[in-house]
């Protein structure tokens, strides 16, 4: 069965349908350059409403592995791969079967490198994946209609995670969290309570947290403008860590601005220079927006890390308050484990805070 990817500039790519073949998808088309970790990416809520292309040509090689999902379901609009692998080693579910269960359509047998280069050249584009090519004149109308009817939202958690002999209790503000963030917090000895970002300050206060973590999540950070007062309030009371969207929101809450990158950073090989140690580490990234360095001038924010390729901001800290944030994903899954120290740094902040208040 044929499938068509129509871009807002009129470009059409065709391929073969897989996954939920009858479903139409619409959203931003993005590419990810990771050579492993397709399962983690597909279940990462940050890809909500995006059409996810993998540059690595063989996707599905090891099927769907238990306990690797980063959220309860796949909220991306579609998955596009060069070559879908259907023979899997053990008795794992295949990617195809799983996407069917998730109602996510896929397209394979397309030139993903040509598509990637197109996105690189023209920036992130609106796209529709359908069983018929979309007429250029119809595109925006259809995109609007689809946008209203098929747009997804990540399911926000309201859960507690306990560890034995927990040193700290962290409340995570959930914008669409990856499960690995929770696991990493637990690995460093924190109990975790996850609450939706719509939760108010009082309800968080009664949880008696030692620190707050602002999670990753989908979309332009500016759509979360209503949540900024909560962050401003929280940072006055607790040590704060922000990851990805959480990093951008911390910046916005402290007077900085964000802007859209031409085609984003999505992959597992992004070099980040940590300015305090002058070390460069490899990081997992998934973001389309970044904090504008020029907007930091009159804020309390300082840059703590920059991307090695385009020098965009990868880490921030407040000078007056215990708050740190990173644009990349220190929790990995997928991606390199080089940055897990971030969780220790967060713990350090909580330690210091305990001493201050002791």
């Amino acid at each position, binding site marked *: 069965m044929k499938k068509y990817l129509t871009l807002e500039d009129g470009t059409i790519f065709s391929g073969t349908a897989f996954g939920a073949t009858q479903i139409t998808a619409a959203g931003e088309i993005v*590419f990810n*350059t*990771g*050579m*492993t*970790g397709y*399962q*983690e990416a597909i279940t990462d809520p940050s890809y909500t409403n995006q059409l996810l292309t993998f*540059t*690595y*040509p*063989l996707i599905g*090689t*090891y099927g769907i*592995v238990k306990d*690797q999902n980063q959220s309860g379901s796949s909220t991306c609009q579609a998955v596009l791969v*060069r*070559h879908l692998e259907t*023979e899997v*080693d053990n008795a794992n579910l295949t990617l195809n079967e799983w996407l069917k269960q998730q109602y996510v359509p896929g397209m394979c047998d*397309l*030139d*993903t*490198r*040509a598509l*990637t*280069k197109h996105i*690189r050249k023209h920036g992130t584009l609106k796209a529709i994946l359908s069983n018929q090519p979309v007429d250029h004149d119809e595109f925006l109308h259809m995109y609007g209609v689809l946008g209203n009817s098929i747009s997804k939202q990540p399911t926000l958690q309201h859960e507690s995670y306990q560890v034995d002999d927990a040193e700290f209790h962290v409340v995570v503000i959930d914008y669409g969290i990856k499960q690995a963030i929770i696991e990493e917090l637990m690995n460093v000895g924190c109990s975790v309570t996850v609450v939706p970002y719509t939760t108010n300050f009082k309800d968080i206060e009664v949880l008696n947290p030692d620190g707050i973590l602002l999670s990753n999540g989908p979309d332009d950070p500016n759509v979360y403008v209503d949540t900024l007062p909560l962050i401003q309030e929280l940072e006055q009371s607790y040590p704060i860590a922000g990851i990805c969207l959480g990093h951008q929101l911390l910046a916005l809450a402290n007077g900085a601005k964000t802007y859209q990158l031409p085609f984003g950073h999505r*992959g*597992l*090989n*992004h*070099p980040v*220079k940590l300015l305090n140690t*002058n*070390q*460069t*580490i*490899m990081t997992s990234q998934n973001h389309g927006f970044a904090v504008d360095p020029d907007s930091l001038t009159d804020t309390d924010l300082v840059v703590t890390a920059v991307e*090695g*390729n385009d020098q965009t901001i990868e880490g921030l800290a407040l000078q007056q308050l215990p708050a740190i944030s990173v644009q990349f994903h220190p929790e*990995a*899954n*997928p*991606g*390199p*484990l*080089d940055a897990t120290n971030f969780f220790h740094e967060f713990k350090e902040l909580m330690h210091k805070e305990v001493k201050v208040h002791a």
Partner: protein
Amino acid sequence: MPKNNSIHKIAVIGSGPIIIGQAAEFDYAGSQACISLREEGYEVILINSNPSTIMTDDEIADKVYLEPLTLDSVSKILAKEQPDALLPTLGGQTGLNLAVELNDAGVLDKYHIELLGTGLKTIEQAEDRQQFKQLMQDINQPVPASLTVHNLDDALNFAKKIGYPVIVRPAYTLGGTGGGIALNQDELVKIGTRGLSMSPVTECLIEKSIAGFKEIEFEVMRDANGDKISVCCMENFDPVGIHTGDSIVVAPSQSLNDHQFQQLRYASLSIVEALKIKGGCNVQLAQDPNSDQYYIIEVNPRVSRSSALASKATGYPIAKIAAKIAVGLDLNEITNPVTQTTYAAFEPALDYVVAKIPRFPFDKFTGADRQLGTQMKATGEVMGIGLTIEEALLKAVASLEIEPQIETSLLPLTKQTDEELSFALTHPTDQRLFEIFSALDRYWSVKKIADLTKITPIFLHKLAHIWQLKNSLGGQLTSSLLADAKQYGFSNAMIAAASGKSELQIEELIVQSNIAPVYKMVDTCAGEFASATPYFYSSFFPGENESKPLGKSIIVLGSGPIRIGQGVEFDYTTVHCVQAIQQAGYHAIIVNNNPETVSTDFSISDKLYFEPLTTESVMNIVNLEQPLGVIVQFGGQTAINLTASLVQHGVKILGTSLAGIDQTEDRHQFEELLIGQHIAQPKGATTMNLEEAAAIAPHIGYPVMVRPSFVLGGRAMAVVHNEDELANYVDKAMKAAPHQPILIDHYVAGIECEADILSDGHDVFIPGIMEHLEGSGIHSGDSIAMYPSQRLTDQQKQAIESIAIKIGKQVHCVGMMNIQFIVADQVYVIEVNPRASRTVPFMSKITGQHLAKIATSLIMGNSLADLGLEAGCAKEPAHVSIKAPVFSFTKNYLAWTALYLLK
């Protein structure tokens, strides 16, 4: 850190002669490193004994010492040159061992020479099994239970304790020489004794075998600042137990999920951190196929064969970057040579798959033990790049240049019984891939084959897919079926073999069905950044063609995998040809498939096509590029063999014409040529069986020299004196290569000599006549060559010169040729090779003339006079130069020693 300005002059140690386990990849790494250091403004002194390399070119270093790599000789050079620093980590195990010796002897201290790159303590920690094991335990990295022993009793006791099978790993030997897997006590006695005797320190590691685990390699880099990256992860097709140099290897890893992958990557980076590596390092790991458990196998704290493969697989030039790290630069300061806009501190992302297949010498050494184990036996390798594993793998198969029938049918030559096949699958040989196909052909299940071979099922599924496609090609050849087969890497020759049609018919069908390849770029970043890497591979997967024709271009065919008889010399000539083309103002395009070499470094040519050297793939490139012509005379016999079919396809061959080539290659035309010019040739004939041979031999006159006709490099030839010896030889030869004609020539006892000739089609220039130390009957590649000759009279030299000129003129040689003579009662011609020969680098270096470049200029239309060369033989120098062959015999346990015994 900025580069080290306290040093100015750096000595680099090369890896010496090409042997199994240490081949052309060190020429590639060494050349890259020298160029990289000079880029940074350092004066480079190179010490390497191998004349056949690009590395020892006068343009690579400020000063080149073609001297032995011994403590004595290198000490003298260091005393004379007084360099500020020494870089030993780019010369393979040879370079490392020598650095250790120089240090122990106090030479480095004496001359205040700083050691660059990874330090000696690290090298020792990585190489000494006991220290390494301790370090791994210190940083909580799992290693299999093991014990270092210095005698057999300790080995046997330990093995009894941990249980068989055990692996024997001799200390400080190259490529695992002397090691092996012992399944029981008897085997351990045998292998342990051998290992202890081969280790220079009489030391072996006895280790719990983890045979059957997945073997994974990481190529990692670390700088002095402690930044670390993983350049490439490679997964061995074969499980632990077969040396990675002898295994099919794919990149990136295929069967690891992200969790497992990151666990192994993290382990690799932790190890290079603990070792404080400064440069490149190879880490080998074993992954349990049934759990997340892994073990560290070993670490090579230097550039290696695997790092060359990783460089070609990713486009990331490891050796070049390693050299920069050695002089103090950090990864985040070094520009990424591919993108030019980003830095070396990143990890390549691939959007294709590569497969490497080793090239074994068993076609020449038919009596040798073909079973594969922990000791490397391959002489070379080929790499295929594709969009699927199938495509990459089949392109590599098409590049192997093994017996054509195997290459196209994908099956072993001899039919095995089921029992034999089962045995073969559990006792792998060089035929492994084809034996698996043979099992699939018998409808053995993937599970059964996996149980026998311990190969990860994902790879077997891919082979099963190939087999399923091959079977369907036996039916109706529809356009969609053809398109499918092409997309999964089937060459036209393979489709022809599967369908029973001719290759030409398939070619026509492909054209009719509008099936054509596109070319994709290797850019290290999966298209994320704009790059202009001139490095391409083909795919029949429909899509965008990224290779735009260069115009005003010339295609140079490379020489494929390193094998007996066709070594790194032909890579040298290929590179020189390219340089001369560029100097003449044209674009040079290389087609080659050997990941180890300098010629497949994308910065060498204007465009590199990493493709099989077959008519089909060359024609696809010709059709796209529309070059001014194709040059075949620098790519060894590989390129020459393509000439006729390229001409048939309408390609313009630059240099000596096909007619001229045929005059020297076709036995009958060659005889006519010599007779016509009154040039003597030993009497000879061709035969297919013993009766004929026995009848012909007395007519030709004993002693006769016999050899199989197809053998390149003349391996397996012998001199026999009577009918008994003849019968013995013919019997062996027929067994080794059934249905192949045998050549019988009268054996002329005399002095063997050879000359390369250069010609513009009118006049002939002879740079010099080399004399072989051994008498006639020893293959020229196996004998010691001297220049100038020591035993020839002026008269004999004149006779050789006059014959060479006659032949050159008669075949209208344009470019270069090589002629071999025997000087006895008169001068006989035994062979003419219509191409550059293995002596070109040697003669170039001792005469100071870049012969392959001169030959290229002649091919491009210059006359000898234009180049300031006088016709005739060059004046001989006063000093004498000697080239001696190096054999890998300790590794191959050869049976074919007839060459020596019958002399």
